[in-house]
């Protein structure tokens, strides 16, 4: 019975954090894109635009939710449901931290550790193609149909290099369960190089990580692979005919897919919650980072660029200093420090996603498919074969 | 009737029902694609049987056979759908009643 209660608490926590992350991911994206493009981004709704996601949610909820009469009603309503429910379910197998013992309850920082953990996000990614294909088809609109078919073809084409890139670190760690993969990347070479999969002998998985990242861009329909849903191509692709909450479902599904795939990449390649250098010293990194952020906020509060900053920045500064104090409490460190490292790595990958969105132009559709089949798939295959060869020649995981 | 466990024969009966429905769809439907999907349903029912018997004998061999059936079904689906595309291109129809002569 305690298992059920603990699981429900974990699910509630993860769900709350995940939904808040999705909402504020949109704010982060708009701010980072804006600063890349030398403008300021959302600034007016709340301090530095922090209430912008709330305003967007209210706008989307109150928009007219129309059901066009010419669509195939069942599939039109089913498509965003499939897209968003599958996107939200993958987070259940991602481990956020080690096995912990809190208030006498011993549990993993993960909702469910299944033995074939790595295959689960792959299966979900494979099935979530239907959300997009059905959305494009049921809208009864040639632009939607073309956008939906192109997007589905792109997603299934890039599933192949993604899967092959995922298999390579599995050869190094010899397990399919995410927790075992994260535990297999513990330890340090020479005392200070972490044994993450991208650094692991006999074959550091740097190419595998790059192939994974490129395929991840294509799987989540992000720039440079977002031709099927770009606003100035094909009207808006597969979600042309969707409005209000159904449109919001597709966007939520897209951001959820970004978070999912960066979490999977972090666990497989960047060593999940394993810190960058050995334990007692790395536990001081979170408090130092938050301390630096707090001091920076106070500095900007004292030399404000805008009048409101005199009030808002010191408040953020106090919040950051409180976080630094929280992360410095020794009994909590064994829970919070792995969470910090995991969130830092995932945040770094999401920043790379947003950065590339602001920097690169998009591929044309035939360039995109040509790239997948003639370059990325052979690269992934060669990476896998090299990894297998080196693991067979140097067994015992040095 | 409350059972603490599920008897294995229920799985086999479910497999038989699915196979029968697949055979019925294969014989009854007139669109080539639906006939093809009924074939896939029959193959799935057989997979369930293999895995149920693998549980009975506590050996993994049934999983391997089921895996091979799955792979062969995927290859067959690819070639079969390519053939369906060619038929549609040449005859313009997907009803099997109208594809009844070798001459175009």
């Amino acid at each position: 019975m305690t298992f059920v209660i603990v699981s429900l608490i974990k699910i509630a926590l993860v769900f709350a954090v995940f939904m808040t992350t999705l909402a504020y991911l949109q704010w982060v994206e708009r701010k980072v894109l804006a600063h890349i493009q030398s403008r300021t981004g959302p600034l007016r709704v709340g301090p530095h635009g922090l209430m912008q996601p709330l305003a967007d949610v209210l706008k989307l909820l109150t928009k007219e939710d129309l059901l066009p009469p010419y669509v195939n009603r069942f599939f039109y309503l089913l498509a965003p449901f499939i897209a968003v429910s599958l996107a939200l379910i993958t987070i259940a197998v991602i481990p956020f931290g080690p096995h912990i013992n809190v208030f006498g309850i011993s549990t993993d920082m993960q909702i469910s550790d299944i033995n074939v953990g790595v295959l689960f996000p792959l299966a979900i990614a494979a099935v979530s193609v239907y959300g997009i294909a059905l959305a494009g088809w049921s809208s009864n609109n040639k632009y939607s149909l073309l956008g939906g078919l192109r997007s589905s073809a792109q997603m299934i084409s890039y599933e192949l290099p993604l899967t092959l890139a995922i298999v390579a670190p599995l050869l190094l760690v010899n397990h399919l369960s995410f927790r075992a993969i994260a535990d297999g990347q513990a330890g340090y070479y020479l005392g200070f190089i972490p044994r993450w999969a991208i650094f692991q002998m006999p074959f550091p998985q740097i190419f595998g990580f790059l192939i994974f990242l490129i395929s991840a861009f294509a799987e989540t329909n992000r720039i440079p692979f977002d031709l099927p849903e770009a606003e100035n191509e094909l009207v808006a692709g597969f979600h042309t005919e969707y409005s209000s909450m159904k449109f919001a479902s597709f966007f939520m599904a897209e951001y959820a897919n970004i978070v999912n795939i960066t979490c999977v990449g972090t666990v497989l390649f960047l060593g999940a919650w394993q810190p960058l250098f050995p334990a007692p010293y790395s536990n001081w990194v979170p408090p130092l980072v938050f301390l630096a952020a707090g001091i920076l906020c106070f500095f900007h509060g004292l030399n404000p660029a805008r009048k409101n900053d005199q009030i808002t920045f010191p408040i953020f500064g106090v919040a950051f200093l409180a976080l630094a104090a929280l992360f410095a409490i020794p009994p909590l460190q064994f829970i919070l420090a792995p969470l910090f490292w995991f969130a830092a790595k995932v945040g770094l990958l999401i920043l790379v996603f947003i950065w590339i969105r602001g920097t690169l132009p998009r591929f044309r559709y035939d360039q995109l498919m040509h790239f997948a089949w003639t370059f990325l798939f052979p690269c992934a295959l060669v990476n896998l074969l090299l990894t297998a060869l080196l693991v067979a020649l140097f067994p015992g995981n040095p | 009737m409350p059972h603490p466990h599920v008897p294995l024969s229920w799985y086999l009966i479910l497999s038989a029902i699915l196979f029968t429905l697949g055979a019925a769809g294969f014989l009854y439907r007139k669109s080539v694609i639906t006939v093809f999907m009924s074939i896939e349903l029959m193959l799935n029912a057989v997979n369930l049987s293999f895995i149920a018997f693998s549980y009975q004998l506590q050996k993994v061999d049934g999983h391997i056979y089921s895996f091979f059936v799955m792979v062969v079904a995927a290859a067959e689906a690819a070639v079969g759908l390519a053939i369906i595309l060619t038929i549609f291109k040449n005859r313009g129809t997907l009803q099997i009643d109208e594809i009844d002569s070798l001459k175009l």
Partner: protein
Amino acid sequence: MDTVLFVICAIVAIVCAFNLVLQKHPISSALSLIGVMSSLAVLYLLLGAEFMAMAQMIVYGGAVMVLFIFVIMLLNAGTEKNSNKSWFAQIAGLPLLLAFVAVVAFLIRSAVPGLKNVSFGSWWGGTAQNVGRLLFTTYLLPFEIISILILIAILGAVVLAQKEID
């Protein structure tokens, strides 16, 4: 708990299979088939076949059915026209089928005595390690032949689906 899950999945599978046979439009049939495959994946998990459940979703639900849906969308396959089906099949078909299933069920129960009871978690043998070990040792030859079969299928599909060279 096992019984509840089995009954739910079995009912979903049978309803979706009926739907596949009875629906007029191929896309509804395709989605019903995806429903059947998903419920079968859950049943595999109940039978301890965790690798096969995931393989079923990835291969069947994520590749084969996507292919079907692409072909249906590309060919713009419409609803089936109601050509003349025999009245005997329409009236006596379903009862005959049920009788057939009943006979098969009776034969199964009498021919294979001593069938076990399935409870989730009583057999952990269906792991990827076991399947992989058997696949690459005892069944290595069929494995290699199947890879050649897939290669032939790829070549066949590419040749059949390419544009005509006029």
